[in-house]
């Protein structure tokens, strides 16, 4: 874990509000983005972000530092979202969620090219239609940029499970994008002992 984050956690544990504010500053946008993408509207995402951080502060003394702070934080955010979904209204999503289009229009970034933008939009829609298990690994690994190991810890599954789900996700997305299978498959390799100059 980053030594600065470790230091902030230690200070926050000893009731240093400034340290807690710094942690908030670093992570609140990430947590909000994660929950906004998942629950599909701004108001619920804000509520869930607040709930997430309330849980963080109340259980901070139980955070032993064995995992990274961001992993622990994402796990709390993930569980908060799951609880919200179970409670009922969270299961209903408001379609279409306009933030993506607004965001792209105001700040095209890597999607300045129309074709890229269309592909990104199609991918985003396709991810939304994935089942929950697969959708969560995409959100955590790709959108939130967590490693496979971190993703596995957040979801409380084995790293091999995450790898398997990612592979399935890519297969599904590839199919939905109408890409030919053979473009993606490399030729099988045959183990042949090398010659002089290979």
């Amino acid at each position, binding site marked *: 874990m980053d030594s600065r984050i470790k230091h902030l956690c230690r200070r*926050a*544990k000893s*009731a*240093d509000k400034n340290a*807690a*504010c710094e942690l*908030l500053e670093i992570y*609140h946008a990430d947590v*909000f*983005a994660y929950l*906004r*993408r998942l629950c599909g509207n701004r108001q619920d*995402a*804000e509520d869930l972000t*607040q709930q997430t951080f*309330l849980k963080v*502060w*109340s259980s901070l*003394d139980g955070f032993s530092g064995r995992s990274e702070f961001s992993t622990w934080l994402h796990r709390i955010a993930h569980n908060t979202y799951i609880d919200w979904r179970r409670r009922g209204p969270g299961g209903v999503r408001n379609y279409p969620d306009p*933030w*993506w289009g607004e*965001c*792209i229009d105001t*700040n095209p*970034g890597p*999607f300045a090219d129309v074709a*890229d933008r269309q*592909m*990104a939009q199609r*991918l*985003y829609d396709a*991810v939304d239609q994935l089942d929950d298990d697969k959708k969560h690994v*995409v959100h955590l690994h*790709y*959108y939130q940029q967590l490693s496979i190991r971190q993703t596995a810890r957040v979801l409380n599954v084995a*790293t*091999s499970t995450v*790898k*398997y789900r*990612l*592979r399935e996700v*890519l*297969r599904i*997305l*590839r199919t939905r994008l109408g*890409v030919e299978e053979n*473009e*993606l*498959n*490399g*030729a*099988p390799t*045959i183990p*042949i*002992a*090398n*010659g*002089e*100059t*290979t």
Partner: protein
Amino acid sequence: MNTEERIEQCLRAAPKPPAPNDLMNKLRKDIILKEVEARGSALRRWFAPSGEQVSRWRVSVAAAIAMMVLLPLSYGASQLIKRFSTISQLPGVSKAKFPWGYDGAALSPDGRYFAGTTMSFELVVIDTSTGEQRKLTENCFWGTPVVWSTDGSEIAYLSRHGDWHTDMGRQPSSLLALSFRTGKTRILMEDPLWPEDWSSDGKLILGEKISKAGLGAAVLVNLEDKEETVLAKEWASARFAPNARSLSYITKEANRSILHLRTVDGTNHVQYVDFPGTIDKPLWSPDGTYVVFTGTQMGIDRQHKDLWALRVEGDRFIGLPLPVTPNVEQMQFFNWSQNGQLAYVTGFQLGGIYTLPVDARTGKAGGPPRQLMLGGDQCCWSPDGKQIAFWQKQEGGEGAFIFVPAGSGERVRTLSVAEITGVSPGMAWSPDGRLIACGGTAKQKRRGVFLIAVETGDVRLLAPLERAPNSLTWSPDGKAIAYGQNNGVYVVNMEDGKPRQIASPTEKEEIFNRPFFVPDGGSVAYAHLKGPNCDTVLATTIDGKETREICRVKDAKLNMRVFSLSPDGRRIVFTPGDEKIWCAATDGGEPFLMADISDLGETVFAFGAEWSPKGDAISFKVGRQEYQYWVMEDFLPAAEASRQ
């Protein structure tokens, strides 16, 4: 970039919903922190209940409790640790000159010896505890697998006929068994195969047979009646189960691997088909309860490999494979010995292409060697000596020629040649500068002499052949190409594209190879090997009628097997396979050391030296091997291991 990578890139670059401006303020207000009590306070209270001095009596009691609890716990922990994977290095093995990328070595059943074939054509065993290396025999076929008998008394290996260095064809003469104690050999098979495994009763061999076209097939051979059973028409890594009743092998279909389990007599055959990727080199655990294999999961990262274990009970696979060791892509596995050690190598070969300035009058080095580029494969000089072209596989597996100035080494041009899939050693640039000739393999498994247009990259198959030729050389007038193949020397005319043999060895152990047109264009010089070393360079007229000796060295161990003839025909430069580059005059005289590259590293070797067209420099390749040999034990999960 392929589509999968594009998808991943798009997902990673997905925009992030911006947090509302007032969210931070709301969250700040929610911060409620409670001070955590110092962890030391509870202990302090116990040791000093009065809050003042520490009680000695309580400290003594605590020490006694700790002794009573910790000692048995530590014993239990050490037992527990034994359940976890342990690895240990075999430092002595690193000194053996095994070929790079070699996966045919094997640990003896008791784990005491490591056997393999070296680049010097020797079969050696290394004591894994002392590092002592012992040569068991020479003239074996290097780069091929060796297999221990189950009792460790014999080693099966291929004796040599053919030159792997310059002849891509594999022509081992026979499969022999060498007694580890007496050193005596006996013939197991005259018609040889690459051995993969030897049954515990010594009566059956599993291995790969290679057709003349270079295609492999996995076969089971009864050594008594020589009856062959073809298991698969491809390389299949077949292995006997320790009980010798069953065997396993892999086949590939539609980019997926199928793991087969069948009884030796063929009465039962099951397949595991659900692995989502490629299975490589399945090996049996010594007790026969697991098959472990390296697995690449397609769709995640093609380079990513884990070690998996699949349980076997009787003639069936049980359950699904378990990942047992992650990230083994840097590990090349050999075998799993009966004492429970799985042997593997890690490491890599570094190197590059170098040039060395040479005094054209004396043939002596005119300065230090200079690195032209890292990596690189085959290379050849342009006819004006100003450029060098390299063959290099690009990302994605396609081949390309890289053109660099011989002086600076800066890449000036890349010419993609997607049609060619592999190039054999020794390519040549035509005297008019328009074509590069190389032996190799193209798509649709076409093999032969290819001509590539330097400007456009157009490919033409001049002479289709069953196997890829090597060491191509242009006649000075550019009307013919000579090459080596099947231990002989051939010439093909540009006009008709029909090859004809001009020199063929008469004895079984003879090899003619590495042809070079002599400057007058009337004859072709080539190395004459008899056994592993070459002490003579011969030249035969292109009509094949006359042969003369043009160079001979007294010490055959200097080995002129890989040589290049200077443009004036007065000298040859050769690399015996170590850190030295030698030069010899064709009109007699003692060979002299042209360069010693040992200051480039401890494990370097030079090979494939080529004269520049003006004779004022040579290019050569440098390899540096950095390998470590290891054994791994108890790597199956504890729960699984305890069932064994």
